[in-house]
């Protein structure tokens, strides 16, 4: 139980850390925040998906650094 709670807390922290950009108020899209939350609330399966999603973002981020900027 405690382990699960700790895992969840870690995940929550991870999700929050990865959500980087500062809020831009002109085009509010509140739904994306709720979608991310559904990962946190989706149990163990949600943890796995969150990790996969973050991993893909990370890879994409690295890839973009090497490739020339888009025209």
């Amino acid at each position: 139980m405690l382990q699960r709670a700790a895992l969840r807390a870690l995940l929550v922290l991870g999700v929050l850390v990865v959500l980087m950009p500062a809020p831009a108020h002109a085009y509010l899209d509140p739904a994306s925040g709720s979608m991310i939350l559904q990962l946190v609330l989706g149990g163990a399966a949600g943890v796995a998906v969150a990790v996969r999603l973050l991993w893909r973002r990370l890879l994409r981020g690295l890839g973009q650094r090497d490739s020339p900027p888009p025209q």
Partner: protein
Amino acid sequence: MDPGSFRDRQSRVLDVGGRIYRVFSPHGWEEWKALAASGFFARAVAAGQLVATAEAVPPPGSETVLPTGIAGAVAHQRVPFVSYPYEWTFGMLREAALLQLDLLLAALDEGFTAKDASSYNVQWQGVRPTFIDIGSFERWTRGEPWIGYLQFCQLFLYPLLLTAYRGLRFQPWLRGALEGITADECRRLLRRRDLLRPGVLADVWLQARLIERAAGNGRPLRAELRDAGFSHAMVRRNVERLRRVVAGLRWRGAASAWSRYADDCHYSEADRAAKRAFVHAAAARRPRRLIWDLGTNTGEYARLVAPLADCVVAMDRDHAAVELLFTRLRESGPANVLPLVIDLLDPSPGLGWRQGERRPLGERGRPDLTLALALVHHLVLTGNVPLAELVDWFADAGGDLVVELVTKDDPMAARLLANKPDHYVDYTAARFEELLAARFGIIEKLPLASGTRLLYALEARR
């Protein structure tokens, strides 16, 4: 056309000749066909959870109401009286929330999801909630989270939390914003120590933070979630969790207020019996379709006349009293009384797009009988409504009227005047009768034995 249904691009609701139709776009029609073929739909309709629906010939002139053209139509069973969440009690909103979640869980089992989660999609058959927006259900697409989750929070969960945890009335908040209470507002309204209570940390606090952080960053999150393998089971798990949170919510303030009503009886046994007999006889004079019981309190007279009508709408401004009525009706009926929290001095206006999405109280069905028992002194002596205007308003409602006048000598009326100057020279039985006679036919008058209360049975001028 029902002005409240325009947001759905795949279907539209029409009221034609007293029948309620829903016409569909080609895409919406495909979804309907899939839904109609499912076991979920048949079971939910049979259980009364979903509004009774059958395919129908599209009404003439409906071809152009959707930009895509229409591919088909269904007819819905008509709801006895349309009401809105800002007129419901805590218990009603909670039951409606559970219905929304139960339907979603049943839908998920058969590969459907709900594309929204608006409390305005629930209406009432007496005290039984019915979900009316069948266009809400669509086949679940792989990797799709529950799009209606935030809306569920704004229009169901947050209002319930504010009443359960802070004792706030949610009705003014919902009436103030048709989108409901935002996560950020709810976070600010709750206290730090509420963080440990069910629903607050994740659904309120974390959601508010995430919305703030993720807003407008323009990421194609839906596609990312799908590619990362967001699953059906995750939606289900979240909905089951929400159901536990909602089912556990209680409004403790209501119960403490209820003890007041029991010992607050201002009638002798004989007067009470005479009043009941008078009201019953007046209501039974003809068959009644819709009765309004204004200032119903805990609904004694609404229940009395219920067997004489198709539908009774029992209204009172006192949230706790109406909640008690709702609880009793759920326990022991009758099944055709709809309790609503309505302040007649501040009744529901037209709201939303062109002020037509949510209709004013008086435009949702006129009563053929109005009961106004132990009410006039409140509206006149507390609300300062001129007696003549009040009688006009009763008459404009269009139906017959049973009204009680509590004179100034009555201890309850005297209590209202205890701390204010008596400017109410028009508040006399003689003046009241003169005004009534100008707008109604007076059928019967009964002074109660106490000497300070008068009952009138009146007939509308047809």
